């Protein structure tokens, strides 16, 4: 490395000091200027960044609302993803499993509130995080939905763009614990403590917003280029091809999947806090799968039973609804439901929930999130 340009030769301490200053002063100035720029535009940037997070869009907002409300009735917290949304195109009539449950439960007399924290795009990892805040209010029952498609990838789906929301709900101790769990499972390089720090500094979504803003510009360019070049686009993947692949891959090791670790941990904490829990397996289009390939329903049932045991649930806490719906109730290959599907999922859920609440009335509550974790 010696003899480079005019900077070689003997270096006196003052030479070295001057060299460092020449490097460091512009370095600090540029970093400070960029941070100042980001700070100046933090509100619009944060809006862009936060807008990407599924948790921020819906579940967290609803959770905030429920936390502010006085507790009048026992609360049943529901956690799940887009399989809770039922709609029938083309003239959409939309409902949710939560609404269906609410309607059935309260048909006669009001017995408990349904805190619906389901949100399209939520991952089991979020359930774990959302519970932290949800349990700060008294909760009488927690219901998890399990979407079997989220187990098809041996890793947890990336979805890092949504994870800042997770970190936001955690305090530092929990953020560190989640980080350890993520690393142990090889699930993600996402770093909850850093996200938590950014949240406290008010910068959580500013960087994400700046990056996302740039990506949006590129995305707009991409859409324009696609149209300008007249490149055809498909509206939907070929159903047969996808189901064939999925039917094979539904034969995965559910009990060994990182999602199971997350659910197991959440259930363990609910048990420790003496909060009743129901985990239900959302319906999949078994009828169609049977006709497409070497799908093995008995083997699937056996693997789901392994999952139940590995999570540590009793039969009473486990509700396997994966095969309850006929093919015509499904809207697409991802097992999203048509309008009528929500009610059919809601009914057995209500039966089981009522059994729990009758057996364990509203005294099964927590008042502090800090006690269990």
């Amino acid at each position, binding site marked *: *490395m010696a003899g480079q340009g005019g900077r070689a030769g003997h270096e006196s301490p003052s030479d070295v000091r001057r060299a460092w200053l020449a490097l460091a002063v*512009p*370095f600090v100035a540029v970093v400070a200027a960029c941070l100042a720029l980001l700070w100046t535009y933090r509100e619009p940037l944060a809006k862009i960044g936060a807008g990407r997070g599924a948790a921020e869009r819906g579940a967290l907002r609803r959770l905030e609302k429920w936390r502010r409300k006085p507790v009048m009735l026992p609360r049943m917290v529901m956690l799940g993803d887009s399989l809770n949304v039922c709609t029938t195109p083309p003239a959409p009539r939309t409902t949710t499993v939560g609404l269906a449950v609410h309607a059935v439960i309260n048909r006669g007399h009001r017995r408990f509130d349904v805190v619906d924290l389901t949100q399209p795009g939520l991952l089991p990892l979020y359930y774990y995080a959302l519970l932290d805040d949800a349990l700060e209010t008294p909760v009488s029952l927690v219901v998890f939905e399990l979407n079997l498609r989220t187990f098809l990838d041996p890793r947890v789906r990336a979805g890092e763009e949504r994870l800042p929301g997770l970190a936001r709900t955690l305090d530092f101790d929990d953020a560190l614990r989640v980080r350890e769990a993520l690393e142990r499972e090889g699930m993600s*390089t996402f*770093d909850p403590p850093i996200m938590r720090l950014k949240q406290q500094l008010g910068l959580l979504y500013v960087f994400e917003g700046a990056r996302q803003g740039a990506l949006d510009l590129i995305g707009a360019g*991409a859409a324009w280029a696609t149209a300008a070049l007249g490149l055809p686009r498909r509206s939907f*993947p070929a159903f047969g091809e996808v189901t064939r692949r999925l039917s094979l891959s539904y034969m995965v090791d559910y009990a060994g999947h990182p999602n199971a670790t997350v659910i197991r941990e959440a259930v363990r904490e609910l048990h420790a806090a003496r909060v009743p829990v129901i985990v239900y397996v959302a319906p999949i289009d078994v009828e169609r799968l049977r006709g497409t390939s070497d799908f093995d329903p008995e083997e699937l049932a056996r693997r789901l039973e392994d999952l139940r045991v590995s999570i540590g649930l009793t039969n009473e806490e486990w509700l396997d609804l994966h095969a309850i719906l006929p093919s015509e109730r499904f809207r697409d290959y991802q097992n999203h439901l048509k309008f009528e599907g929500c009610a059919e999922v809601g009914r057995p859920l209500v039966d089981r929930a009522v059994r729990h609440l009758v057996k364990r009335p509203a005294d099964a509550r927590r008042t502090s999130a800090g006690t269990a974790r």
Partner: protein
Amino acid sequence: MLFNSLYFLVFLALVLIVHHGVLRSFAARKMFLLAVSWLFYASWSPRFLLLLIATTWIDFQLARIIHRTRAVSPARARALLIASLCLNLGLLAYFKYGLFLYDSAGAVLALPPAPGFLAVVVPLGISFYTFHSISYVIDTYRGIRPPTDSFPDFALYVAFFPQLIAGPITRWGFFGPQLATQPHVGMARIEASLFLLAVGYVKKVVCADSLGGFVDGVYGNIGEHGWIELLVAIYAYAFQIYFDFSGYTDIAMGVAGLLGFRLPENFRHPYLAENPSEFWRRWHISLSTWLRDYLYVPLGGNRHGTARTYVNLLITMLLGGLWHGAAWTFVVWGGFHGLWLAAHRALSGRDWWRTSLRTGDAAAPETPRTPRWLRRTVTFHLVALAWVPFRSASLGDALAFFEGIASGRPLLHPLPVGPILLVLIGLATHGLATRLEIASWWRTVPRPVQGAVYGLVVILMALFHAQSGRFIYFQF
């Protein structure tokens, strides 16, 4: 502790402060570097640190005994060499290939499911540090250089944290002499190291990880993407893996440089290669030269006739493919490169393929008749195509990938403009490299400008950190 994590930057800062600011003697600094290297490894798995230390110690002792006995008792030295190879390759085979070999045999012989002791986690970096030790013991056996008497020196050579996880695969002959005298870390070296760090981080965090998001999406759902997306994914992965691995190497070299050490060059603009042979002199140089010296040459190299040379090339590349992982996809990738190297060797000997420069100088190189740009284009495309089985989860996926391109399926998403831009940037930097030695040019840039650019790099890292992932070569 990933190089692209804040934790590593804090770790590095502490190491530099103690190394340069607190410790004065070289011996103390080396002991300190050994301790932090082991700590760095233990941060991933304390259990496997014991394995690393144990194998290091055994190889250290075996090499010393081999050195003492090779003159008086060659048979004993040979037996000890074989013992060392069995230990190192045995551990590698058990951790990395045990399950793969059992499953592959089981598919043919209808064996029961693999026993639990085969389903083990692969120790991080085992492929790299095992190759360090093997080359050290073989070089000792060959009498190329004597072994060191200092266990800490040898342990530091094996475990030096900048290169512990993913190389470059360093030879004792390169690293050992650096442990003899305390290096001077002047401003020139610091500036060169900072430049490498900045380039490495931009390659990794901005380029590789941005391309990775697109590539993962395509390879995760091959059947759903259109032919244009699949085609772009071929080029995108070619540059993702280049940016990722060469970025890692740049960071490793930069960190080593800040501590006063040099690591060998691992990449030399590989996509400028004009043939497969040149590609392997430009891509993962430390691995290809290792395979050449410790596998291809012992197999006989080109000393036993044409046919045997081709077979040796094929064996070397097949094993080189398998080194990347226990999967048939890597075997196919290695096999393709082996066949391609053999074919190139066969063709380049034909008169109709090449033409003499006719300078009158008998020693002058001969060049093929085809223009250089065409040779580069063809080589780049064949390399890029070979990455498809390398990246695919299975051979079935690789076939589905090529079928998808042939299908003419329309796009699933808008045209991937972002990845296309990054691929063009990758090509442009390769093209620029033919005209400009960027590192040399950078040294002429005024320091305030350098500092300002480093500031921008830090901001870029903060912007792109959220999407940043593991280094691809960590899994190998």
